[in-house]
C-alpha cells in the first residue's frame, strides 16, 4: 500500500465516520511527532517523504523521452513527483552513490549486467516485490536471467531496454561494403588516421580490441595482443569521446568518419538527416540497461513507478524517443511500427543474435584492466 496516501486515507476514514475525531488527530499528531523527532540526517537517509522519487539517467534524448512519456503521466496519476537528474557516466554515478546516505538516490538507468553486479558487491541492492510490478509479465526472460545469477532470491532492478555498440561511419567517406569487409578492423586502419574516434571506456576498448585480434570478448586468451590493438587505435584516433552528445557532435560535424557508437544515438543522428551508417560486426557488443532500485529507497513508490514505466504504452513511447528497443517481448506485445526498425531490434524475443558481456568475467578483471587501460591510453 502506498505510504504517501496514508494521510488521505486517514482523512477519508474520518470524513466517512470510520474514525473518531480524537483518534484521527491522535494519529496525525503521532505522525507529526515521528517526523519531528527525526534528525535532518535521518530525513535525508529516508529520502525525505515519498512525495518524490529521484531518478538518475543519461540525459539528452533519453531523458526527454522519460520525462515526456513516463514521469509526467506518472506524477499526474499518482501525485508522486519524479526528480529527474542526469549523470555523465556510470562510474562517476557509482562513486556518488557510494558517498551518499541511504535513500538519497533511488532509481537509476544503469547497465544491466556490469552495474548490477557492482552495486550488489557494494551492498547497494534492494529487494523488489515483483507482485507489485505486474507489467514484468511482458519483459523478455533472457534479460532477467543475468540478474538472477547475481541475486537469486530477489531482483533489485527491472530490465528496460537493450542496444548495441556497433560501428558508426560517415557514408560519404566509407561505403557499406567497406565496413562489412573490414569490420572492427577499420578502427585500426591507417587510411583513416586522425579521423577515427572511440569511446574512452576500458570495457569498450577491450571488447573491440578482442574483435580486432580475432578473439572472443568473453574469453580473451591473448591479452597482450588486445593491448597492442588498443595502442594502435589510440595512435590513429583523433580523440576518445566521453558522452553520447560528444559522439553525435564529432560524427555530425565530420571531425571523425568512423567510431564505435551506441545504436540509439546513431539512430538519432540518422533521424536528423546525417548520412551516418551503422553496422554491428560479428560478436558486436550487445548490452542491456535496467532501472535499478538502490538500497534504502522507498520500495513501494519505486515499484509503482517501475510498473508505470514498464507499461507497454509508456515503454514503447520511451523506446521511440530514445531509439533503443524496449525490454518487452515482441512476441507478446505489439511494439508498433517504429521499434522494429530500430538498430539492434530482435523480433524473436530471445536475443540469441546478440552477444552480451558476461559480468562475472569482466567484473573479475575490472581492477586490473581498468588501471592498465589508463596506462595504455597515456602511451605506456
Amino acid at each position, binding site marked *: 500500500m502506498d505510504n504517501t496516501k496514508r494521510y488521505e486515507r486517514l482523512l477519508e476514514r474520518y470524513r466517512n465516520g470510520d474514525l473518531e475525531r480524537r483518534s484521527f488527530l491522535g494519529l496525525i499528531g503521532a505522525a507529526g511527532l515521528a517526523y519531528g523527532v527525526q534528525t535532518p540526517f535521518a530525513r535525508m537517509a529516508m529520502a525525505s517523504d515519498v512525495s518524490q522519487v529521484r531518478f538518475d539517467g543519461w540525459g539528452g534524448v533519453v531523458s526527454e523521452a522519460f520525462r515526456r512519456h513516463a514521469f509526467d503521466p506518472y506524477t499526474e496519476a499518482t501525485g508522486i513527483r519524479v526528480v529527474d537528474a542526469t549523470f555523465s557516466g556510470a562510474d562517476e554515478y557509482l*562513486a556518488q552513490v557510494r558517498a551518499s546516505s541511504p535513500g538519497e538516490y533511488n532509481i537509476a538507468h544503469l547497465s544491466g549486467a556490469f552495474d548490477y553486479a*557492482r552495486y550488489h558487491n557494494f551492498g547497494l541492492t534492494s529487494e523488489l516485490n515483483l507482485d507489485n510490478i505486474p507489467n514484468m509479465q511482458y519483459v523478455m526472460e533472457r534479460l532477467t536471467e543475468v540478474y538472477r545469477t547475481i541475486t537469486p532470491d530477489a531482483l533489485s532492478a527491472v530490465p528496460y531496454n537493450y542496444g548495441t555498440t556497433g560501428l558508426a561511419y560517415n557514408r560519404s567517406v566509407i561505403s557499406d561494403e567497406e565496413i562489412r569487409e573490414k569490420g572492427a578492423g577499420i578502427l585500426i586502419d591507417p587510411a583513416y588516421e*586522425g579521423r577515427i574516434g572511440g569511446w574512452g571506456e576500458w570495457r569498450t576498448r577491450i571488447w573491440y580490441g578482442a574483435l580486432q585480434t580475432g578473439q572472443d570478448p568473453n574469453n580473451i586468451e591473448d591479452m597482450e595482443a588486445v593491448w597492442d590493438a588498443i595502442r594502435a587505435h589510440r595512435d590513429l584516433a*583523433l*580523440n576518445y569521446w*566521453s558522452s553520447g552528445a560528444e559522439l553525435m557532435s564529432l560524427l555530425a560535424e565530420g571531425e571523425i568518419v568512423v567510431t564505435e557508437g551506441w545504436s540509439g544515438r546513431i539512430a538519432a543522428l540518422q533521424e536528423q538527416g546525417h548520412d551516418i551508417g551503422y553496422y554491428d560486426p560479428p560478436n558486436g557488443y550487445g548490452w542491456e540497461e535496467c532501472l535499478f532500485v538502490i538500497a534504502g529507497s522507498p520500495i513501494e513508490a519505486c515499484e509503482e513507478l517501475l510498473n508505470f514505466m514498464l507499461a507497454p504504452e509508456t515503454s514503447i513511447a520511451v523506446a521511440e524517443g530514445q531509439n533503443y528497443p524496449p525490454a518487452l517481448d515482441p512476441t507478446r506485445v505489439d511494439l508498433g511500427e517504429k521499434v522494429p526498425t530500430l538498430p539492434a531490434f530482435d523480433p524473436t524475443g530471445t536475443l540469441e543474435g546478440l552477444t552480451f558481456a558476461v559480468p562475472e568475467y569482466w567484473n573479475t578483471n575490472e581492477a586490473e584492466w581498468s*588501471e592498465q587501460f*589508463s596506462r595504455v*591510453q597515456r602511451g605506456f
Partner: protein
Amino acid sequence: MSVEARERRQPWILLSPALGAVALLLLLPLVFIVVYSFWLRSAVGPDTVGFHLDNWQRALTDPFYRYILLNTLKIAAITTVLCAILGYPAAYFVARSKGNKVILLLLLMLPFWISYIIRTMSWINILGSSGALNTALMTLGIISEPFRMLYNEGAVILGLVHFLLPFMVLNVFVSLDGIDTSFEDAACSLGATRWQAFTQVTLPLSLPGLAAGGLLCFVLAAGSYVTPVVLGGPRDAMFANLVYEAIITQLNWPMGSALSLLLLFVLGGLVALYNRFLGLSQLTRGLG
C-alpha cells in the same frame, strides 16, 4: 570578565564561523583522504581498512605516475611562461592608461562571467576541422584540407592560457599600479632610454606581482582537470585526470587519495618555497 579578556576573545568569536567552515569543509575531508590513502582497494566490493603503505609506494615509485606528474609540471610551467609573456604587456597597458582603467579592468573580468567549461569548449568551434579558423583558411585557399589543431598538448596549453591569463594580468597590474611613474621619468632624466628605464627600474619593481601571478597560474594549471579532457587527445592527461580516473573509473579511492595528496604536497612545496623567498603577502595583494 575583564575588558582585556573580552578583547582577547573577541577576534576568536568573530573568526569562529570562518574557522569552523575551514575545519569542516577543508581539514576534515583532508583527514579522511589521508586515512583513505592507507587503505587498500579490494578487487570487488568495499575497500580493505588498515594501515598499508602500498598506495604510497606505488605513487612514489611507479614510472607511470612520475611521468604524468612531470608532464603536468611541464605543461604548467609552459602555461605560466606564456601567461607572463602575454599578460605583462596587457597589464602594463592597463596600468599606464589614463582615464579608462576601470573599463579595461572590467573587460578583463568579463570572461569570468562565462562558465570555464563553456569557454574551454568554445575552442572546439574555433579550432575544429569544421571550425571557424579552418573554414576561413580553406575559404581563402590557404589550405586545402582541415589543419589538425585540436586534441593535442598544444590545444591543452592554449586552453589553460585562455583560462589563466586574467589571473596573471591582474597580479601584474596591481604591482605596476603601485609603482610611481616618476621613477621612470627620473631614470630618463639621468640619461636612460625608455627601454633601460623599464628594464632597470619598472620591471624589477614589478617582479613580485609577476611572481605572484606566476604562482597562481602554475598552481591552477597543474591542478587542471577539465582542459585536458575537453581539448586533449587520448594521451594528453594531467595528474588531476589520473586522480579522477582512480576514484571514479577504477573505484580505487585509496589510490586516488594517495595520488591527490601527492599532488597537494608537490604544489604545497612550491607555495612554501615561494613564501620562503618572496612571501605570500604579494599574493594576497594581487587577489585583493
